C-alpha cells in the first residue's frame, strides 16, 4: 500500500498543477473523471483496483453510491473510509449523480440514427 499511496499522491499533485493552468473545471486527462473538490480522495481510495469507467459510465443517486461503497467494503476489500466517506459521496453525488438531464424515464425517444 505504501508504494501505491505514494504513486497516488504523486499523480494527484501532477493533476493539480495541470488544472491550475487551465483555470476552470476540467476532467483529469489520465482518468477521464471530473476534477472537483474531493477528487483526490476518490482517486486515492476508489480506483486502486478497478478502472474509472466504473464511475464514468453510470449515474446513481447518493443512496445508491453509498450502497456501492458498502458492497466494495463487504465483498471487495475496500477499507473503512472514516471521515473521507461523506466527502467522497459528495463528489460522486455532484459529478456522477442522477439528474433528469441524463434520462427521462417517461419518454421512449426516437432513435433518429
Amino acid at each position: 500500500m505504501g508504494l501505491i499511496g505514494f504513486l497516488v499522491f504523486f499523480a494527484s499533485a501532477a493533476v493539480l498543477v495541470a488544472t491550475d493552468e487551465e483555470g476552470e473545471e476540467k476532467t483529469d486527462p489520465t482518468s477521464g473523471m471530473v476534477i472537483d473538490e474531493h477528487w483526490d480522495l476518490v482517486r486515492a481510495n476508489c480506483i486502486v483496483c478497478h478502472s474509472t469507467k466504473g464511475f464514468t459510465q453510470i449515474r446513481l443517486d447518493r443512496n445508491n453510491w453509498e450502497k456501492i461503497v458498502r458492497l466494495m467494503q463487504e465483498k471487495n476489500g475496500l477499507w473503512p473510509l472514516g471521515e473521507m466517506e461523506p466527502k467522497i459521496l459528495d463528489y460522486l453525488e455532484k459529478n456522477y449523480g442522477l439528474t433528469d438531464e441524463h434520462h427521462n424515464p417517461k419518454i421512449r425517444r426516437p432513435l433518429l440514427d
Partner: protein
Amino acid sequence: MSSEKPNLPLQDGASRRSFVKAFSAAVGANIVFGNLIPDGVVPVAMGQTPEPFSIPGKPGLTILNDRPLNAETAAHLLNDAITPASRLFVRNNGLPPMKVDADSWTLSIGGESVFNPKTYTLKDLKSKFENVDLALTLECGGNGRAEFYPPASGNQWTIGAVGCPVWNGIRLKDVLEDCGMKDDAVYIAYHSADRHLSQDPSKDAISRGVPISKAMEAESMIAWGMNGEPLPSHHGYPLRLVCGGWPGSTSGKWVKQIDIRNQVHDGTKMTGTAYRVPKYPVKAGATVPDEDMEIIESMPVKSLITFPQSGVEVNLGDSLKLNGHAWAGDYEVASLSLSNDFGQTWVEADLKKPVNRLAWQQWSGDVSFPKKGYYEVWARAVDSEGVSQPMLIPGWNPKGYLNNSCYRIAVYVV
C-alpha cells in the same frame, strides 16, 4: 495503479507487439520500456485512460470498461449465423490469469457430493470423453442494462453482449458421471484461474454454477475450442464451461475446478443482487431485501435486427429486406414479427429452426413503406411457451438484468 498489475493474456508475440503499439497510441505516447512489457500485461495507464482503444482481434467492439475488460458488439456486426471470435462480446469480473500453460492445465472435480474426486488434464478430457461441437447462445445477464431507469450500477450494456459461436469440447454430464454424484447433489460450482480485482488471492473474481438438472443437459459443455480454434484468451483459454441459454456468468472461463455441491452454490456473485432478481415485481428504484431475490436461470426470449444497420435510407416503393437472430434461453423461438408502425401492425418473418437446441435462430423478412418519412422497424420474438418480448422495458430490478425489450432500427424512406 502499479506497473506490476497485469490484465490480459495474449497468445503470441505478434499480437503482443500490435497490442503494445495500440496501447501506445491510446495513451498518447510511446510506452517507455514497451518492449519489456511481458506477454499478458496491459500498461497501467490503460486501466485509467479515457482515450478510446480497441482490443486486438476484436475490431469494432465498444469498450465499456478497461479494468476489468468489458466490451460489446454493435448489432450490425453480429450478422453472422455463427458468431466469429472477433465479434463475440468480452465480459470479465476480474483479471484474467497471467500465465496459461494448456499442457499442464488440469480440471479437478470435487465438492461435498462427488463420489470419486478426480483430476483430468486437458488431454485426458479430449481423449476420454465424446467430443461434441454445439452452437450455443451466450448472453450476459446484464445485456440491455443501459435502458433501465433509475439506472443500475455495472457495465452499461446496450444490446451487444450476446453471441452464438460453435463451442468445441465435451459434455459436462459425461465428466460428472465419470466421477459419480451422491443422491444429495444439488448444484455444480466452478472455480477459475482469474483473479479478483483487488488481487487478494483469498478472493474469487467470480464463482458461480448451475443446478444439477441444467448441468446434466446435453448442451452443458466443458469447452476448449471456439469455431474450431483453441479458445481465445479473452474467452477462457484453455478451458471453460458453456451453459447455453443461461446468464453468461454461469459459463465460467479459465475453469480449474468444478465442485458437485449439496447446497445451492454460495460463491462470489451467487448472492445479494449479483445475477439475482426480485421474486415479485417491484417498483422501479425499490430496495429489495436479499431474501426476496432469486437466482436468474433461463434468459428471456429476445431478438436482434443485424441487417441493415439503423439509420438506413430506402427509396419509396422499394421493400426493405431485413434479417437477424432470435433466441429464448432454455426454449425455442416460435415466431418473429416485424412492425413499421410502432407496434400497431405486425408481419411475420421467416424463421429457421436452431442448428441444435439452445442455438440462436436466423430470421429474414421484407417490410414495405406506404409513404416517405421517418420509420422505425421493430422486431418481436415469441417463444415456444407463448411468451413474447415486451415492446418497452420489462420489470425493473436492482442490478438491471433481463432487459429483453424489442430491438428497433431507424429507417428513412426517401
